[in-house]
Structure formats: structure tokens, C-alpha cells
């Protein structure tokens, strides 16, 4: 294999359909994994915020006890605040990208690091916002008097359910059941978010880790 001949042929080969744009605006957005992941994450977090804001309107469609309504708004406000803080933090973080002009190995390591950090920040943002959601939903439905449940021989419904739930006016056994239900819902939210994020975005990390392995002799 004559590398000099290959070089001459490569240089003699026409550039086919590859041309340099006449201005920077003609370039499309970057398609590097980190940019694609960050773009999707940004829109997902903003979507989450929009959904939270829409949730604020829910009590307008339901007749609720004033205390339930107040609690619901406080919980929604905290959720919105957490999400907003994460959006602010992420906007700063998402604009930071590792240098691509260092050595190839450092570039790959930097990209893996950035992707992992981005993924962790994303998971925390989604999970932190979502963990208050079961409490908001419980306040919304129990406070509207439209929900009734039976626990053993005890029938709970309407405002009675709301006050019992949120003043923890129940036996230790039922308190443990409520905590258990909340933890199960929280675990489902956590597991779904982690699986969703890893499945959707983890693939890019795996590919880059495979590339990093290729540096090994």
C-alpha cells in the first residue's frame, strides 16, 4: 500500500457535492450528540413547566374546599419554582461545552463527561419536579370531594378524606399505607424517568464510551 499514491489520488479527487457556505447563517444547527441531547432536554423541561402552569388552572374547573385549593396552589407553586430554578441552572449549564480543539482522547472524555452531567441534571430536574405531583393530585381530588376510597371498613370521601390525609389524622397503620402508596408512586416516577432518560440519551454515552475503548492498544 503506497500512502503517497493514495494521498495524491485523494487530493486529485473532486470535492463532489461538498461546498463551503457563503455565510455562517447557511449552516444548520450542530448535530453532535451533546447538542442534540441538550436541545431535546431543553424542550422537555420547558414542556414540563408549561404543563405545571396549566395545572394551576385545574381548580377553576373543580369546586374545591378553600384549604385544599390553597394547599394545591402552594404545592404547584413549589413545583413550578423548582422547575424554573432548574431551567435557569440548565440554561447556563447547557451553553457550556468542552473544547473540541484539544487532543482527540481529551475531546471524547470531555464529551462523555458533559453528556453524563447533562443527563444527571436532567433526571434530577424531572424527578424533583415530579415528586410533589402525587401530593398535588391528592389535594386536588380529595379537596374537590369527588374522590372516595375504602380502606378496610373505613369509607373515606370528600373533604373528610382531604382533612384526614393532610392533617395525618389517621392510625399509624393507615399512615404507613399512605406513605407506602406515596413511595410506590415516587419510585414509579423515578424508575420511569431514569429508564426513559437512559434509553433515549444513554445510547450516545455508550457510543462515545465504545469510541474511548478504541484508543486502547
Amino acid at each position, binding site marked *: *500500500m503506497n500512502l503517497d499514491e493514495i494521498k495524491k489520488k485523494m*487530493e486529485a479527487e473532486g470535492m463532489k457535492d461538498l461546498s463551503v457556505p457563503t455565510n455562517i447563517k447557511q449552516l444548520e444547527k450542530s448535530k453532535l*450528540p451533546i447538542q442534540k441531547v441538550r436541545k431535546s432536554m431543553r424542550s422537555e423541561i420547558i414542556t414540563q413547566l408549561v404543563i405545571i402552569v396549566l395545572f394551576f388552572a385545574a381548580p377553576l374547573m373543580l369546586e374545591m374546599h378553600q384549604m385544599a385549593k390553597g394547599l394545591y396552589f402552594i404545592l404547584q407553586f413549589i413545583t413550578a419554582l423548582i422547575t424554573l430554578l432548574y431551567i435557569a441552572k440548565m440554561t447556563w449549564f447547557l451553553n457550556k461545552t468542552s473544547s473540541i480543539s484539544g*487532543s482527540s482522547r481529551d475531546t471524547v472524555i470531555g464529551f462523555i463527561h458533559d453528556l453524563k452531567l447533562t443527563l444527571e441534571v436532567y433526571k434530577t430536574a424531572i424527578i424533583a419536579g415530579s415528586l410533589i405531583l402525587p401530593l398535588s393530585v391528592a389535594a386536588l381530588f380529595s379537596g374537590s370531594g369527588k374522590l372516595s376510597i375504602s380502606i378496610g371498613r373505613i369509607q373515606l370521601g370528600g373533604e373528610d378524606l382531604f382533612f384526614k390525609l393532610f392533617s395525618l389524622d389517621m392510625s399509624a397503620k393507615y399512615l404507613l399505607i399512605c406513605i407506602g402508596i406515596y413511595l410506590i408512586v415516587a419510585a414509579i416516577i423515578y424508575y420511569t424517568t431514569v429508564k426513559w432518560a437512559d434509553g433515549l440519551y444513554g445510547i450516545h454515552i455508550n457510543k462515545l464510551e465504545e469510541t474511548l475503548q*478504541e484508543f486502547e492498544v
Partner: protein
Amino acid sequence: MQITEEAFLAAINQHKGILYKVSRMYFDTLEDQQDLFQEIIIQLWNSIGSFKGTSELSSWMYRVALNTAIVFFKKEKKKPGRESLFENDGFADEAYDDHKDQQLAHFYEAVKKLNKIEKAIILQLVEGFSGKEIAQNLGMSEGNIRVKTKRTKEKLQNIIKTQGYES
């Protein structure tokens, strides 16, 4: 380095051969090559501020182009109607009369079977980079590069031989 858009694009035009060779080395379909070619320009534009002028602009461009190719992944799904350049060139169907054309076509066909780091090594060897320069660009020790270069060249030779071509 502060540079105007016009000056930047003029520099890209002057050294576009680097971008072409990297794109051609890493992808065989025109669509993927166009995507990578454009991505390299984006990354060069985004990183031009980090160019200190201590090395040749072309060397710096080469490094950014290679790094971009290494962290760039082609689209999973291909749009119909986009063919491989080899197919466009008639590599599969037409007989080549010219020995050198055949040599380059076989070279690119064999390169497809190399991994991203092996491609980077071969491209830099073709360009005449020294072992020290390749080691610096890739972030590996010179000793490791020597071993990897030897193995990569052997691997490429074997692939070319299995293709039924010997240069």
C-alpha cells in the same frame, strides 16, 4: 483569535481539502459526508476563539476536523435515494481501467472496516504526519501510537488483500 466571518470562510475555502478528506475518510455516503463536512465548519467557527496562533491554522483545523469526526455519529435511518459514493462512482458495477482509481476505491472500501481511531491514524499517516504529531493529536503516548500504527497498517493490508486487491 478574533476573526471576521468573511476571513473565517476564506480560510475554510483555502483549506477545504482537509474537511473533504476527513469527511470522505469517515463516511461513504454523500449525505453523511455533507453532514460531517458542515458539522466540522460549525465546530471550527465555534472554536476559532481558542486558536492561539502558536501552530499552523491548517494543523489546528485538522485536529478540530478529526475530533469532530470522532464524536460525530451518522444518522440511524437513511433517506431513500441517497447512495454510497462508491455506488455513485460505479465501484461495484463498473470495471476500473485505471490502476490508481482502483487503488483509491479499494483503499476507501477497506477503510470502512476500521474503527474511528484507526481511521484517524491512517489519515494522518497518508498526510505525512510524524508519530509524535499523531500521538499529540490523538492524546496517546508515542509508544502506543507506534504499536497501534503497526497493527492498523497490517489490518488495512489484510482487508485490502481479502478484497482481492494488492497494491
